[in-house]
């Protein structure tokens, strides 16, 4: 019998990956390609959806070739994607309309402020269990309809389609299937989390024609069969990348949590089939839905800028040549020298939700070297994690005992030690750094019966590394105090027009 495999497409913010996994959930081959980031104005971030699809088409055969396998050995393909990024395209030609607006983009700032004062805003926020925010896809879609001449009319006539990245990819993979999954749909401000379908009130509130929206499906279910990239292979799953990572870490039991360190960082806590609303600045989100079973929910602490601060250090300041060199540079000094960087590039997300905040570097003196700045870059990620963990502990009434981590930044040893130090709990990395992809693969494999059940997946989880806290408690408190004062200095920077 020839061995069979599952393939994941991880369509991330900085790059797209195609990864082949074996039955034990181990990576067999990987093909990866970065795509272009467009920054046309301060606060604007765009992607070219056509480029991203071309990358998927190129990466698919590459991943199979590197694994030395053929299409008929692929049991299923699963998709994990950057969330909230908004794509519009022409139903007939399939060509994207304008660039995709990325989740970090804050152009909807004043639009959101206006929407918040409108009657019905509270109902919309209640339905979606989300605050109205520049973070989510709904306001972006409204913005695009407002700023492209004739688009609203074309959308009403059903000529224009909306999707987040998984919708765009499935549409291209299948040659015209227009669907989304509940996790991605729960990041639009448009979903009713109780019915798990588009909320008619919310659509009316935003003035969005139903005709342009995809059909909402469970995350783990056969969506259709691919005609391109993986012709003949069934698409078994689609999830937002953070939900996929939760799945890949096999956090299936209420109370289990993980934090993924990539472009941004996201702490998700499984709250079971019950939707929990936060009193401390966390989001409620759909975690996953397996077939027709009830959906699982999660509390989420979203941090917009972590790895992208490292990228900024590399690409905009040009102080390092590659992201991992941040650690080398940081190790040239013993501490931050009194310097703190709060990367409120897109405002601050959880737990503050301050869209008018902008980044600061504080504590500058002639003593500060680029080494201290590099320390401050890494510590910014650690302290932002501390803030969302504190919020999570307050909401759940429980205290986090260990933090499960994954994502590209977990290769940074100094960072992982800092996270353990500032949280004062052990930080654990599983034997699979690419947990986003693994989650998509697990979900797709479950959908087609490649893996029998969730319990089987849990047995694949093993500890690959662990960092234990080693910071003096008094210093921790002082540093946290400094960090909080630095954060306050970012507030109210952008003034209402």
């Amino acid at each position, binding site marked *: 019998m020839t061995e069979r495999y599952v393939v994941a497409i991880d369509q991330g913010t900085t790059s797209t990956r195609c990864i082949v996994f074996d039955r*034990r959930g*181990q*990576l*067999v081959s*990987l093909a990866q390609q970065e795509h272009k980031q467009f920054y046309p104005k301060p606060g604007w971030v765009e992607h070219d959806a056509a480029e991203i699809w071309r990358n998927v088409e190129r990466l698919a055969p590459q991943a199979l070739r590197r694994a030395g396998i053929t299409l008929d050995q692929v049991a299923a393909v699963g998709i994990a994607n950057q969330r909230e990024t908004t794509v519009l395209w022409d139903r007939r030609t399939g060509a994207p309309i304008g660039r995709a607006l990325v989740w970090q983009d804050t152009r909807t700032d004043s639009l959101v402020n206006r929407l918040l004062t409108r009657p019905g805003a509270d109902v919309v926020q209640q339905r979606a269990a989300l605050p109205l925010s520049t973070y989510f896809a709904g306001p972006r879609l409204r913005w695009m309809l407002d700023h492209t001449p004739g688009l609203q009319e074309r959308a009403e006539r059903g000529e224009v389609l909306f999707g987040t990245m998984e919708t765009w990819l499935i549409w291209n993979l299948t040659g015209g299937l227009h669907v989304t999954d509940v996790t991605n749909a729960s990041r639009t401000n448009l979903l009713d989390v109780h019915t798990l379908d588009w909320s008619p009130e919310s659509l009316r509130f935003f003035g969005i024609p139903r005709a342009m929206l995809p059909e909402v499906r469970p995350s783990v279910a056969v969506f259709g069969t691919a005609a391109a990239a993986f012709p003949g292979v069934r698409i078994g799953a689609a999830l937002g990348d953070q939900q996929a990572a939760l799945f890949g870490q096999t956090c299936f039991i209420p109370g289990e949590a993980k934090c993924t360190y990539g472009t941004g960082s996201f702490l998700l806590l499984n709250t079971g089939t019950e939707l929990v609303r936060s009193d401390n600045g966390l989001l409620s989100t759909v975690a996953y839905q397996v077939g027709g079973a009830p959906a699982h929910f999660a509390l989420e602490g979203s941090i917009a800028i972590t790895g992208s601060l490292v990228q900024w250090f590399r690409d905009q300041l*040009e102080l390092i040549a*590659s*992201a*991992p*060199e*941040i*650690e*080398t540079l940081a190790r040239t000094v013993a501490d931050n020298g009194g310097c703190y960087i709060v990367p409120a590039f897109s405002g601050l997300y959880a737990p503050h939700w301050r869209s008018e905040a902008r980044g600061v570097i504080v504590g500058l003196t002639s003593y500060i070297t680029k080494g201290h700045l590099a320390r401050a870059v890494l510590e910014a990620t650690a302290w932002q994690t501390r803030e969302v963990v504190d919020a999570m502990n307050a909401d759940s009434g429980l205290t986090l005992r260990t933090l499960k981590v994954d994502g*590209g930044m*977990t*290769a*940074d*040893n100094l960072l992982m030690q800092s996270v353990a130090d500032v949280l004062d709990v052990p930080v654990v990395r599983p*034997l*699979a*750094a*690419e947990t986003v992809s693994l989650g998509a693969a697990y979900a797709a494999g479950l959908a087609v019966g490649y893996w029998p059940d969730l319990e089987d997946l849990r047995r694949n989880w*093993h*500890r*690959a*590394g*662990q*960092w*234990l806290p080693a910071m003096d408690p008094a210093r921790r408190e002082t540093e946290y105090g400094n960090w909080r004062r630095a954060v306050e200095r970012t507030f109210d920077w952008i003034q209402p027009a």
Partner: protein
Amino acid sequence: MPGTVQSIERAAAILRMLAGGPGRLGLAEIARSLDLAKGTVHGILRTLQHVGFVEQDRGSGHYQLGAALLHLGTSYLDINELRSRSINWADPLAARSGEAVRIGTVLEGRVLVVHHVFRPDDTFQTLDIGTLLPLHATALGKVLLAYRAERPAADLDRYTHRTVVAAKELAAELERVREAGWGADVEEYTVGEAAVAAPIRGYGGLVVGAIGVSGLVERICDSRYRPQPKLVGYVRDAARAVSRDLGAARR
């Protein structure tokens, strides 16, 4: 002149020009001075840029000597980058072999552990990234030594009765490593433990590190005290996968 390579000569000429000039130079300027086609010069510049000998200014597109030229004597690959680039392949190696994985590079005559993956049995283990190990008594170290021009230190420490300390014996052992493409240590550093390692190569085949597994000698070795071929295969596959990601040619 039989036996000379034209493109290397041209590359040398470009480097001399960049070293001699007052500042950054543009492609057209270099091509004109050397009387070469722009396409030819561009290809050479891109290769030099790839190996770090030349850097290109993002704004103007002009070229200058790269930082790597100033540090020719030291390792060209940042150790944290080596960890980042190999992490995806170290995990499957640990899963398949069932043993702990380490990646090492040379630092001042010793092996510096730059990455460590626990043995996947969920027992308590501690990360030993940053630890220094002897070159001559470990599989990682022997592999690193085998591909270096420098000679091992004269008086080698003995850790167990199996540690190779005689210069001649070690030289023969390193020759075996080069021939086989992998190395082992069987109770040469710690009694009861054995290890297998293979070289990680960067561009041009340059060995930039070693990756290996280690564990109890009865798990690593067969009844004749030799590393299990299956394990050796896993280690070499992982080393090749990392090397390919680092841009080494396929071999």
